[in-house]
């Protein structure tokens, strides 16, 4: 920071031309070295800088003052290591001109002095206390920064004052400057104001010099807050008898539930009284408020009206505090929270319940799991609504998701019934979750799909559980179906070979003719009989007549079901051979298929499941077919494009055509016999046909999803199929982190890299297995072309492709029937594979393939082997011809022997996805989640739910905001959201932030409440109160005559009260409002008297003191809420007319001479600022002040001794207070 430093001893540097008292020798250039400036000098320089910056020295500033708007400016400056805040306070309001009388004389006085004498500034409605004490409109306050040590000693004060004095002189500032001493709450200030001629010292002491007649202005403040209408009518709140139900739990309550009107401050003012004419002391007073000439009324609204949402959120976050207190176990400190919630409950007006009732508990569970009670009620999974951004920002959960409901329910239960009840609910919830897992019932209101990491961990966990449950459901369904079909398949399979279907044939024929050039069709037909497999079985399956009718064309992309036939078929086959095998179905494919069903308008019900399966399959097949057609189209197009491609396509076509015709003839009989049976037939038919084909040709790939473009397998020349693959298991965020940590922990060495790759190769392995299964006779080259196309380098066209092939593809076993070779290789690799697996198992969770699966694989590959042998002849020829069409080689990195890709490939056996070990172990995952949820401690649960709850709260407030088009509350909400989004995880560390958020939300709610119902409600409340006051004063007109007018007057008064800082009644005794207030006042006084008596009885010890303080007495009473206070008789101000007499004018505006009165005044002021100090403290305050005065009399002592004494005083005072 660039400092403008002026060495004070040399007066003012000439460079600072704006200084008031610039010297004469301005022309001399001199180097000004500020490097040695002492802290004091720089402090003064800083002060001066501020004064200049604020233009306090401007000669015409006084003109600008009148009618100024209340504002303040703040800067920080330092005095060596201490920091001070310098504040310029500008109070609003008009100033009467020329109070000090006439012309030239008045101009002599600084504005501050004139303001002091200005009676119009006597009682500003809401102002800084200095403004109220001294009637100032503009002043500067210097106080230590918050939390810093305050100025205690007189020496310090003097030092500050002299700095100020120099700064004032240097800058010509005429604004009073105050320095705050002692603790801020004591409101002790010393200050000064200077001009060329006059200097005014403001000291904290009272020193009155009486000179001639003195006029006083008196103001008594009466706080009206004893309302007999204690039940405040608000929006319907918690209905105690109602109990919980869905509607109640589903919505966070928003709104205020206390009377918005806290108190009315009635001031009785006598602006000008001659002192001699009034008597006012402890026993007698002339000053009856009812006879005051002016009344002003200010409305004090409840500052922190407890709003329901705030209370809910707060009481929710409360138990979390326990986490932060060190050493607390989570079970023990129930006491605190029980106490807390009890008080909360009282506030809510709910009778304390020890625990949640069975009925309520049931209601909560019903709210969370509606389908548990009403099985027909299918709940749609929640859609992320418009505020999805909020979900992401807050890391919450979609609204109306189970998670959100849970959060709301827990919060409400906690607020109303306490933490114990909340725990009980949670326990119930975990039980329900477990029940659902065990009985395979999916969770309501949880979006399907893998855990969404944008949501909170709780939501992710629930999603994970749901994934597991859905997985289980599918598995079970598959099982059932399997059981049902088993005999049938066994029965059908033998006949399958001889059962071609005419329907199928026609259908296929037509489709072919539709989309293929005629010559192609003929080609297909001609080739009849030389089956090469390919999509053969499929073709048969596709032709289910029912399916054609029921299922319209579908997009190809949604092709999960395409795999089903083969799986089913597989199942059938296996079940006949190997009954013990039981895990066949892979969840995700089934899942896809089911979705498809839904989209097709077919509903699942267990009774007709088999039939539907058939239909569904049909759908899949249909799709398959469409695809095939498209493929063909492409093929024919390709013909035009290029020779090579065309040939390739033709080769493929041939294969297919052969397959088709073959299967057609095989299936005919079966189809005929089965057709009448109905829906169920479709599936079986397909399977039968398929099984037959497989048995016949042995070239059948398994677990195919769709054809992979127009790629063909290098070795066999058959079209390449993309296998059905297992999806990667879903992960919740914490597992992701875990995994990452594990990976990172391995380090960065070569070995680590390799290990990591191995760890992650489970999915690669799975994919390779599936690929091998789908494409018998395939090579790594084939796999790479599908999996990582960029690792395949296309060969140059026309080059000796055969050779390339031989080199690359046949590397394993020459030209002699690649497939057979491969098949036998699988057998050899068996043991090797297992060994590798074990090694993996040691590595952690990463190993995939279990032994159980392996045995299945065994038989599978055996079979394959067999099949291969059966048909090897045909293939040899086929592959021979097709080899030519694939040219190219693996990229350099893939070619490297010993690479992990090769390694995995070599151990991967052809196992279709559904028979592989599941990458997703639903049982384990579900158990993990359930264990996690059940093991949550109360506070942990609280933390987890907190973001969701705040999200709900923000949403509720936003809704309300939008519904009522409020303008005021948005900023707080935005703040809250941005604050929330800065919290990465809900941890104990982030609790303060959450608390801040909650307070922001409470504020918003409060603002909303104000804007919505508060002001009207306050008006309403006021009306009631004033009406009551009228009744009390016995002035109610009764006959209704003139009532309308009176009411309109009162309404106007209310309007002013709500809008303006204060309502001024010039005719307190005659106006209706005045009468109403009189009534209220009378009631207050009566109550006060009563209570004062009680207080004095109770507090005999301090009684005397209090009495001396007069009307402030009741303040010391702790439970003063209902008490009426004629707070202070202070405010009498004695205007000192003798200002003219001397330049040094001692003192502020005079106050009453009696110390007691003075004290009371101060008490009043303190009250005004709502400092919340007790009577005793104030006592201490004034005593302290007295001592100060004494100190002052003694004069300037050394700083150190002074401060020591100050500390001593502190101690003494503490003792006194204690």
């Amino acid at each position, binding site marked *: 920071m660039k400092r403008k430093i002026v060495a004070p001893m040399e007066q003012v540097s000439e460079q600072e031309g704006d200084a008031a008292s610039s010297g004469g020798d301005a022309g001399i250039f001199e180097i000004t070295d500020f490097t040695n400036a002492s802290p004091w000098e720089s402090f003064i320089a800083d002060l001066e800088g501020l004064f200049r910056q604020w233009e306090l020295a401007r000669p015409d500033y006084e003109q600008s003052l009148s009618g100024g708007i209340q504002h303040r400016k703040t800067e920080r400056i330092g005095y060596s290591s201490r920091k001070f805040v310098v504040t310029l306070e500008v109070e609003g309001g008009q100033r009467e001109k020329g109070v000090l009388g006439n012309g030239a004389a008045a101009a002599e006085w600084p504005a501050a002095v004139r303001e002091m004498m200005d009676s119009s500034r006597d009682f500003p409605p809401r102002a800084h206390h200095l403004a109220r004490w001294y009637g100032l409109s503009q002043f500067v306050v210097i106080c230590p920064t918050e939390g810093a040590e305050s100025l205690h000693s007189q020496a310090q004060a003097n030092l500050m004052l002299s700095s100020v004095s120099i700064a004032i002189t240097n800058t010509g500032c005429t604004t009073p400057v105050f320095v705050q001493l002692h603790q801020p709450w004591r409101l002790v200030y010393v200050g000064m104001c200077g001009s060329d001629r006059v200097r005014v010292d403001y000291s904290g002491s009272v020193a009155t010099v009486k000179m001639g007649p003195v006029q006083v202005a008196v103001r008594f403040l009466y706080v009206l807050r004893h309302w007999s209408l204690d039940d405040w009518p608000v929006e319907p709140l918690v209905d105690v008898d109602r109990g919980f139900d869905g509607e109640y739990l589903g919505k966070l309550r928003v709104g205020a539930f206390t009377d918005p009107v806290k108190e009315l401050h009635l001031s009785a003012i006598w602006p000008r009284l001659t002192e001699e004419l009034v008597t006012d002391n402890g026993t007698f007073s002339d000053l009856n408020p009812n006879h005051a000439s002016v009344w002003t009324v200010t409305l004090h609204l409840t500052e922190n009206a407890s709003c329901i949402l705030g209370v809910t959120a707060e009481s929710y976050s409360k138990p979390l505090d326990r986490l932060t207190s060190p050493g607390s176990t989570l079970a023990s400190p129930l006491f605190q929270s029980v106490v807390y919630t009890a008080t909360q409950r009282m506030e809510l007006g709910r009778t304390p319940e020890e625990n949640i009732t069975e009925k309520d508990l049931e209601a909560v569970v019903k709210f969370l799991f509606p389908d548990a009670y009403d099985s027909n009620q299918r709940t749609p999974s929640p859609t992320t609504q418009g505020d999805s951004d909020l979900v992401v920002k807050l890391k919450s959960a979609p609204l109306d998701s189970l998670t959100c409901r849970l959060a709301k329910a827990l919060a409400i239960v906690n607020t109303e019934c306490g933490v114990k009840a909340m725990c009980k609910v949670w326990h119930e919830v975990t039980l329900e979750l477990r029940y659902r897992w065990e009985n395979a019932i999916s969770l309501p209101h949880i979006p399907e799909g893998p855990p969404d990491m944008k949501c909170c961990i709780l939501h992710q966990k629930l999603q994970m559980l749901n994934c597991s449950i859905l997985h289980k459901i599918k598995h079970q369904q598959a099982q059932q179906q399997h059981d049902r079909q088993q005999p049938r398949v066994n029965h059908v399979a033998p006949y399958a070979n001889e059962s071609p279907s005419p329907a199928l044939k026609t259908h296929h024929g037509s489709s072919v003719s539709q989309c293929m050039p005629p010559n192609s069709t003929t080609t297909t037909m001609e080739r009849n009989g030389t089956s090469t497999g390919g999509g053969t079985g499929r073709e048969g399956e596709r032709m289910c007549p029912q399916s054609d009718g029921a299922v319209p064309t579908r997009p190809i992309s949604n092709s999960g079901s395409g795999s089903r036939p083969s799986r089913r078929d597989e199942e059938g086959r296996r079940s006949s051979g190997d009954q013990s095998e039981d895990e066949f179905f892979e969840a995700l494919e089934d899942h896809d298929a089911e979705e498809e069903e839904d989209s097709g308008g077919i509903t699942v019900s267990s009774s007709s499941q088999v039939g539907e399966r058939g239909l569904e399959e049909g759908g899949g097949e249909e799709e398959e077919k469409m695809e095939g057609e498209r493929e063909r189209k492409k093929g024919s197009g390709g013909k035009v494009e290029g020779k090579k491609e065309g040939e390739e396509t033709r080769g493929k076509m041939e294969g297919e055509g052969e397959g088709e015709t073959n299967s057609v003839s095989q299936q005919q009989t079966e189809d005929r016999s089965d057709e009448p049976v109905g829906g169920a037939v479709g599936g079986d038919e397909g399977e039968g046909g398929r099984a037959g084909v497989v048995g016949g040709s042995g070239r059948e790939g398994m677990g195919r999803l769709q054809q992979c473009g127009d790629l063909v397998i290098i070795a066999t020349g058959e079209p390449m199929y993309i296998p059905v693959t297992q999806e990667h298991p879903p992960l919740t965020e914490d597992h992701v982190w875990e995994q*990452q940590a594990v990976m990172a922990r391995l380090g960065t060495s070569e070995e680590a890299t390799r290990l990591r790759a191995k760890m992650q190769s489970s999915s690669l392995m799975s*994919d390779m297995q599936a690929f091998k299964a789908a494409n018998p006779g395939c090579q790594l080259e084939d796999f790479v072309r599908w999996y*990582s196309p960029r690792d395949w380098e296309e060969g140059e066209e026309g080059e000796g492709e055969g050779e390339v092939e031989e080199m690359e593809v046949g590397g394993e076993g020459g030209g002699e029937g690649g497939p057979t070779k491969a098949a036998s290789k699988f057998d050899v690799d068996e043991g090797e594979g297992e060994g590798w697996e074990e090694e993996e198992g040691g590595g952690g969770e990463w190993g995939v393939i279990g032994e159980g699966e392996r045995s299945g694989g065994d038989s599978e590959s055996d079979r394959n082997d067999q099949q291969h042998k059966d048909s090897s002849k045909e293939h040899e020829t086929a592959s021979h011809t097709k080899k030519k069409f694939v040219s190219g080689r693996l990229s350099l990195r893939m070619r*490297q022997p010993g690479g992990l890709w090769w390694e995995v490939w070599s151990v991967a056996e052809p196992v279709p996805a559904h028979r592989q070990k599941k990458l997703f172990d639903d049982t384990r995952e579900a158990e993990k989640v359930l264990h996690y949820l059940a093991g949550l401690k109360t506070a942990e649960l609280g933390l987890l739910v907190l973001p969701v709850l705040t999200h709900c709260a923000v949403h509720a407030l936003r809704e309300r905001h939008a519904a009522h088009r409020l303008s005021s509350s948005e900023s707080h909400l935005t703040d809250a959201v941005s604050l929330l989004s800065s919290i990465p*995880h809900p941890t104990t560390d982030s609790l303060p932030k959450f608390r801040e958020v909650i307070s922001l939300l409470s504020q918003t709610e409060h603002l909303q409440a104000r804007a919505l119902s508060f002001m009207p409600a306050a008006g309403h409340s006021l009306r009631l109160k004033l009406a009551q006051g009228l009744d009390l004063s016995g002035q109610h007109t009764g006959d209704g005559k003139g009532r309308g007018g009176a009411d309109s007057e009162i309404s106007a008064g209310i309007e002013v009260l709500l809008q303006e800082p204060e309502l001024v009644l010039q005719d307190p005794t005659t106006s209706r409002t005045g009468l109403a207030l009189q009534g209220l006042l009378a009631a207050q006084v009566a109550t006060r008297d009563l209570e004062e008596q009680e207080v004095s009885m109770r507090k005999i010890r301090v009684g005397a003191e209090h009495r001396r303080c007069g009307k402030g007495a009741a303040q010391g009473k702790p439970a003063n809420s209902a008490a009426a206070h004629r707070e202070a008789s202070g405010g009498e101000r004695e205007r000192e007319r003798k200002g003219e007499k001397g330049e040094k004018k001692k003192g502020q505006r005079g106050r009453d001479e009696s110390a007691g009165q003075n004290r009371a005044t101060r008490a009043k002021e303190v009250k005004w600022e709502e400092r919340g100090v007790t009577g005793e403290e104030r006592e201490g305050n004034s005593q302290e002040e007295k001592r100060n005065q004494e100190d002052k009399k003694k004069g300037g002592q050394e700083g150190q001794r002074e401060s020591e004494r100050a500390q001593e005083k502190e101690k003494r005072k503490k003792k006194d207070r204690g």
Partner: protein
Amino acid sequence: MENVNLKVLIIGDSGIGKSSLLLRFVNDTFDPDQSATIGVDFKVKTIVLDQKRVKLSIWDTAGQERFRTLTPSYYRGAHGVILVYDVSSRGSFQNLETWLNELDTYATKKDLVKMLVGNKIDKESREVSRSDGLQFARRNSMLFIEASAKTRDGVQQAFQELVQKILQTPSLYSAEEHRQTLDPLAPPPSDVSWCGGGSCTVT
């Protein structure tokens, strides 16, 4: 000297030289037959920048389509991303959009720094011009550089620029953000430097 831990991610199509870039940056070597990455790999490099010792945890991902379901979980908490394409492959450039979408979907830090690197500029058969890359980077407010892992052109600069930018982004790098959490849900503390809870660790 201040220690800073940053997490950086490398993404892009398969076979465009992501791992090679990383290897060049970390070990200053080039291996033409480096095996194709499976899943993700991980390297650490410490560099000194702006009086800070920056420990970069660089996660190298596999570009293959099938791995794309595996890798997004590593996007979480990344401070910076290097999006690579191969200047000799138009396809890899055209896929950038997909990668960006992926990034927007899975990355957790809103302001994470994105850098576009056109790799393999040593190759003669250039299919993507420099201006194409520049344009794309500008459109998506990314840093852009062309590099070659083989000839080491631009590699160091790319990483340094990225780190510099991260350090200049207050929402990514702020000393206050660091606080060790004792939360059951927070990632477990480990000896190795991975960015705890997606925040910078400043010690």
